[in-house]
């Protein structure tokens, strides 16, 4: 069975089976899109909420541009737009630095922008494990749509 690790700013789509993985998500956000009728799953590992300047040519580095990009790739593989659902994981704040919250709350912004982008695309969010101050590994089982979330010292859960 395929196990595809999706690195920062990357994306991948699998059909029927296999596991899509984001290792050690901190402030980054992992967005899993799934068409259960066709068993087509896509995973995005976005670093930032929105592009900051015109030099940013990689759409999948950002939640705002990466989600529509991933959706298009899935539609191209035959996914049905009306069936697609989402699960999002990550967006934590690993460090607290007094007086510099502006700079370090990007994890929260990532989560907000991911939610908003999905809402605009009318994709319902079926599961979410975001926020806090700890890292998460996300495993997306394409055969079932289950997303397994692993942490260090905070157990494991399925969403």
């Amino acid at each position, binding site marked *: 069975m395929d196990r595809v690790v999706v690195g920062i700013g990357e994306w991948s789509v699998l059909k029927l089976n296999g596991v899509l993985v984001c290792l050690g998500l901190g402030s980054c956000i992992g967005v899993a899109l799934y068409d259960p009728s066709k068993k087509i799953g896509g995973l995005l590992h976005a670093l930032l909420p929105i592009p900051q300047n015109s030099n940013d040519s990689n759409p999948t580095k950002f939640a705002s541009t990466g989600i529509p990009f991933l959706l298009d790739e899935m539609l191209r593989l035959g996914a049905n737009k009306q069936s697609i659902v989402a699960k999002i994981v990550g967006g934590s704040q690993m*460090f607290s630095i007094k007086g510099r919250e502006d700079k370090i709350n990007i994890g929260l912004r990532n989560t907000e922008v991911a939610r908003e982008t999905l809402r605009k695309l009318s994709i319902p969010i079926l599961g979410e494990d975001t926020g806090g101050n700890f890292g998460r590994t996300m495993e997306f089982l394409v055969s079932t749509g289950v997303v397994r979330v692993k942490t260090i010292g905070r157990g494991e859960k399925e969403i």
Partner: protein
Amino acid sequence: MQLDSMHLDILKELGNIGAGNAATSLSQLLNQRVDMSVPEVKLLKLRDVPYLLGGPEIPVIGVTVLVEGDGEGQILLLFTRDSAEKLIKNVMAGFPQNELSEEMKISVLLEVGNIVSSTFLNALASFTNLKLIPTVPASTTDMAGAILDSVLVMEATEDDLIITVVTDFTVQGEMIEGYLVFVPNRLSLEKIFNSLGVSL
């Protein structure tokens, strides 16, 4: 951003100077003879740093400070759990080990982070004539990947090379391995090179 071999040599040299000073201050903190291998300065992509420590899911202890002043950026110290334990034991030598609370251990690591990052920045500041001030340090224990990506989102430089200093030092026969990751943001890099009369 295009860095040529001269830029890389300058960054390595800055890393060497900063690390040398940081190492000296650490040996003063430990108040013991510290044998140190020459710090190895690497220029890596930030996203590749977790692989130095064994991969994105490996639990590590990270101590970070933000850099403020003439240039912005971040300094991150990374230790494996074993190395952190050894470091704490050495810093707190003479103190009954079983009376060390988790809170005390963390404050030892924060203090180490404080000293090492301040010395590193001081060396860099005097070399470049820039005013570089560290914030109060913060620490966490978690997956290497998660700690590194939180640095990435702050500086957004995942495609750029950053200075990573790997230092091995031996205190009373025990090897302690630590990683000092210096992430100047783009503007800071420009200022650093400009201060040395090199354009970017």
